[in-house]
């Protein structure tokens, strides 16, 4: 180890010793930090789960156009040509009534129903993607499509997907704002812990300064202490999130099953876990740095 790291190693060891010297106090402070961080972290994870659910569906808006049953093959071709020349349409797909029935039959729940039908009740349909993402274009397209004689019904498919995306985004922002607020709590907790430490070690600090300690030498153990305490809090928060997700996962799955959705509720991945712990550690460091700056001054020497 290079000589330049020796003071850092010493400061680290001293900080660690202070932490281990008061296990209960250390645990309680870390718990405060951990619980404060669990709330936004858990919220973020749930939103993240919802987000991956929403990402499974295409966010691109689609318009389904169902044709009247009496439109014949020639009418369908004429209708298709008209859509192809429409500049507001970027992609077009024809779903024949037979194909639609097959697809429906393929979905387990409806298999027996389709088999019992005397004839195919489904209409022919076009699925088209409008150009761009301007809601005004969708609306004008919907109006002109509805006005066509061949058209029985027009449906904008994707509105709810968009809404889901919007909800997910809102949720993520809320979780981040919550993280910001509760991160402040973490800073304040560390600030106060360090303040008390400086007060109790006043004498030692003043003697050290008198013996020629640099301010860095005095400051460092406090910074490491804040960092380590934040890290412990982060690890606790991570553990709490894992446990809480484990506890609620079966309930979410039961709920999801009633909607015929398979949800695999996942905890934080490696990157998210590391970020959480690092976030907590850095905030601990910041809290300690602010406290040291405020409470460790030169007047302490005598």
């Amino acid at each position, binding site marked *: 180890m290079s000589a330049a790291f020796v003071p850092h190693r010493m400061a680290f060891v001293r900080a660690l010793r202070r932490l281990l010297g008061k296990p209960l106090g250390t645990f309680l402070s870390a718990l405060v930090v951990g619980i404060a961080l669990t709330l936004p972290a858990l919220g973020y994870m749930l939103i993240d789960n919802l987000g991956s659910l929403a990402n499974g569906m295409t966010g691109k808006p689609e318009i389904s156009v169902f044709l009247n049953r009496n439109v014949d093959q020639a009418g369908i071709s004429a209708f298709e040509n008209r859509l192809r020349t429409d500049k507001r349409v970027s992609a077009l797909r024809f779903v024949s009534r037979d194909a639609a029935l097959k697809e429906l039959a393929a979905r387990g729940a409806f298999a027996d129903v389709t088999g019992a039908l005397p004839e195919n009740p489904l209409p022919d349909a076009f699925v088209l993607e409008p150009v761009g993402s301007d809601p005004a274009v969708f609306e004008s397209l919907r109006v002109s499509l509805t006005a066509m004689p061949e058209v029985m019904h027009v449906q904008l498919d994707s509105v709810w997907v968009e809404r889901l995306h919007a909800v997910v985004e809102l949720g993520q922002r809320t979780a981040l704002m919550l993280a910001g607020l509760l991160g402040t709590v973490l800073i304040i907790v560390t600030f106060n812990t360090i303040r008390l430490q400086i007060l109790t070690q006043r*004498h030692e600090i003043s*003697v*050290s300064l008198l*013996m*020629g300690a640099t*301010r860095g030498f005095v400051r460092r153990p406090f910074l490491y202490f804040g960092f380590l305490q934040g890290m412990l809090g982060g690890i606790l928060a991570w553990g709490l999130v894992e446990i809480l997700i484990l506890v609620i996962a079966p309930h979410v799955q039961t709920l999801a099953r009633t909607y015929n959705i398979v949800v695999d509720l996942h905890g934080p991945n490696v990157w998210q876990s590391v970020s959480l712990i690092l976030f907590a550690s850095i905030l601990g460091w910041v809290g300690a740095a602010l406290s040291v700056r405020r409470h460790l001054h030169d007047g302490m020497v005598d």
Partner: protein
Amino acid sequence: MIRFENVSKLYPGGHEALSDISFEIRHGELLVLAGHSGAGKSTLIKLIAALEKPTAGKVWVSGQDVGALRQNQIPYLRRSLGLVMQEHRLLNDRTVFDNVMLPLLVTGYPPRDAARRVRVALEKVGLSEYENSMPLTLSGGEQQRVAIARAIVNKPSVLIADEPTAHLDPAYAREIAALFRSFHAAGVTILLSTHDETLFSPYGARRIELAKGRLQA
């Protein structure tokens, strides 16, 4: 070694602790700073260790203008001095050994050499068998000797002691005085303040006297 040039120290509120002080301590000298309490002895010593800044004049230590030192240079000045302050300021929750180790710890001294040096310093003040004791279990004279061991463990070029014999029984005080005498004999430059200069007069020390912040002729 240490030189005061027309130094004055005016505390906020108008109290003039030192007024136009000029003197010099040469290498290898033992200088006794005499005077009643409140004469400005402690202030003078604080100026040398950069615990206070002069309001006028200059304090030179080993060619450095102490008043002009930057904050980050002050620790290195203090390391070159062996300081024994008026209250001995031991850490009562550490052993004698750890107390004497502190200046070496602070300077990042290699631990194995440091332990050897601590034992040498303790031996010099005659406390070898007390290295694992806690300071509060020692007598006042022994505690003062721990503080002196702590001051010399760094092998400073100059030893500065503020009233090292205050609050001590006469017998202990004579022991401490003899200790400083032995350091002086070993070539250490020493500045010490005392209100009881009879302790050091047998050693033929040079003396200067402060009264109400002024040097007496």
